[in-house]
């Protein structure tokens, strides 16, 4: 596999450049390879699925396969979560698709990769729909999103949709081991499993955690180091906060909440989303308990949008958790 030696974050360094190098995802890569044989037949594509499963990677692979090393000249890569308004669609996308009409030499068309496009506003999506129609002879779109349901129907019907599910656990373990080999350090098997389990099918998280762990210790990464990384560097210590709340240590839980907000500048909505995710990771809760907690979270997620002060809504949520933990005290 070709390695991007210049890149220093491993997620970039070991990002596959050709469809053949992609881990797992065989069904999808096979279909895409078929398009590559005769690029003119490639329709607009939509990649939908959970984060870290290779959507952006596959899009970039296609760019590489179509245009070779100079792919950047033929590709417009936009992140809709950063530039999600109608102006972006009207100016940058329209300009690019118009420009590509004048021809790219041997390239069959210009490629527009729109990442996180479920973040696009409604009007922007509507504007996009028109452009996709008028520019189909000169450009192809690859739309990437977590939930295809957030994309308006007319756009969906113009795309071939590929759904990405959680990556295979063993494939991920093999992959992090392979990276460790390339980087010349020994990765304890238990440590590899810990990393993969922590990442929950998100390869980006797994590789980032691996690289961080390797910075802790020269030449060798064991399970203890991985646990340290997960503790110190995991995006947020949301689990710690949830557990403290469930144990009835409200004051402590709230302190952690303020720490999370204080160190990363996360908004209340971002924290609530993480809480929701973490709850489902907690193996010591029954499915019924998770469902009940999820209901509570949903209520406060809504209140957050209505209220004036997110600190207060989050505090109130933690108080509900404390009450919940108290009620199930015997079994928890």
């Amino acid at each position, binding site marked *: 596999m070709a390695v991007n030696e210049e890149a220093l974050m491993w997620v970039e360094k070991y990002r596959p450049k050709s469809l053949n190098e992609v881990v797992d995802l065989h069904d999808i890569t096979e279909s895409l390879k078929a398009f590559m044989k005769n690029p003119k037949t490639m329709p607009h594509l939509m990649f939908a699925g959970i984060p870290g499963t290779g959507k952006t990677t596959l899009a970039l692979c296609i760019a590489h396969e179509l245009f070779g090393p100079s792919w950047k000249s033929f590709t417009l890569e936009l992140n809709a979560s950063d530039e999600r308004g109608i102006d972006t669609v009207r100016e940058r996308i329209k300009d690019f698709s118009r420009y590509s009409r004048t021809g790219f030499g041997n390239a069959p068309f210009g490629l527009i990769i729109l990442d996180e496009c479920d973040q696009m506003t409604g009007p922007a999506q509507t504007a996009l729909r028109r452009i996709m129609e008028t520019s189909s002879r000169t450009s192809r779109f690859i739309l990437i999103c977590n939930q295809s349901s957030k994309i308006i129907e007319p756009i969906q019907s113009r795309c071939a949709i590929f759904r990405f599910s959680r990556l295979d656990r063993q494939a991920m373990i093999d992959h992090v081991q392979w990276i460790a080999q390339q980087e010349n350090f020994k990765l304890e098997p238990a440590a590899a499993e810990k990393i993969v389990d922590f990442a929950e099918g998100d390869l980006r998280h797994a590789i980032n955690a691996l*690289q961080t762990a390797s910075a802790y210790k020269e030449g060798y990464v064991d399970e203890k180091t991985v646990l340290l990384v997960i503790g110190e560097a995991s995006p947020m210590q949301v689990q710690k906060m949830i557990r403290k709340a469930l144990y009835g240590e409200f004051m402590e839980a*709230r302190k952690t909440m303020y720490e999370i907000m204080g160190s990363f500048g996360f908004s209340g909505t971002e924290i609530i989303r993480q809480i929701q995710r973490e709850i489902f990771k907690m193996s010591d809760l029954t499915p019924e308990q998770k469902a009940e907690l999820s209901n509570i979270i949903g209520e406060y997620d809504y209140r957050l949008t209505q209220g004036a002060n997110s600190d207060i809504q989050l505090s109130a949520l933690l108080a*509900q958790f404390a009450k919940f933990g108290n009620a199930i005290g015997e079994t928890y």
Partner: protein
Amino acid sequence: MRIDILWVEKYRPKKIEDIVGNEEAKATFVEWLTGKRKTTKKAVLLYGPPGVGKTALVNATAKEFGFTIIEMNASDTRSEKAVNEIAKPATSYVALDAFSGGTKGKGNMLFLDEVDGIAGNEDRGGVSAIIEIVEKSLVPVIMAANDPDIDKLRPLKKVCLLIRFHQVRIPLIIALLQKICLLEHVKAEFEALEHIAQNSKGDVRSAINDLQSLSEENHVLTLQDTMGLSSRNKDISMDETLRGFFSAKSIDEVSGLLFRSSVDYDEFLMSVSDNLPKRYTNPEELAAAFDLVSQADIYRGRIGTENWHLLKYFYNALSEAAAVAPQSYKPFELITPPIRIITLFWTKGKRSMLDAICRKIGAQCHVSHSKAKKDFVPYVKEILQKKKSSALIDWFKFTPEEVDFLIKMSKY
């Protein structure tokens, strides 16, 4: 309430001896006015809390000694021009009848009430104009103020004899109230009058006003009747409001308290949220109370900047939160200042620093700004904290400030 005439007017002291309390101040003032006190000061400044008899003393003295009062108070403009127009003529001649002997006429006296209220801009030059008048005046100049310590009065104090008034002692106020009750045929329990007097904090005027507002014909004024008296003119502080809030026995009690208090409600809401876990240690109660505080916050959100009619629902929800479990109240130490101060860590400068970092990560790793913050920053900062790799820094094109920021990012 009987409103035929305000009792404070009806029983305004007519003679110096009618003024209750502050005997020393009264004596000093009379000595000064009659020239018996050895001083070169041509003006006096009477100062002390409101309602203790400063103005009453000036009026009563003028009456007893036959002066005509030329008065300027806070309702008049007191710029240099205004002072010169009104006060100067009044102080630059001595009345003819002062020399006619025998009679009580002594001419004018200039009375500048509420001099601490001389405004900065509108009354420009007022203070220096007053000083000039004091120096040239042929007649007594009397000033009164509540707070003599303010800077702008410092030059005035130099040319004045300072006479201090104290709060009137409670027994004296009670005696006065008893006298008025007798004259007005009001029957009142001693405890009721005592409570009114105490509540006034030495302010005779407010005590008389309270007595009048509470007394009804053919009704004995009881202690119970006086319990509703709010502390007049005394701001209820945040601490006081919080303490009252958490110790309240009923929703009504809280509503009354919130209605009277003038604390900023955003700040108050935050403080309630901060202190709630100290008030309710039982998880059930805490959850119930926080649910209501959360609803109050929702109303606050809906009020925004215009729907102020919703404010009553905000207060209602808060009042309910205070009365979730009155029986479980135990005194506790308030948390102040608000613990969210930690979020102030996120100044605008720091935010834009993190934004720049996330943009740089996004450019290299094909991720959005928000993903960079969530999926990369926690790792990148950890890697840099462990091993300051200059190659990695160069690759991201981080500035030294940004590296420093990442390394110092607080660890859990």
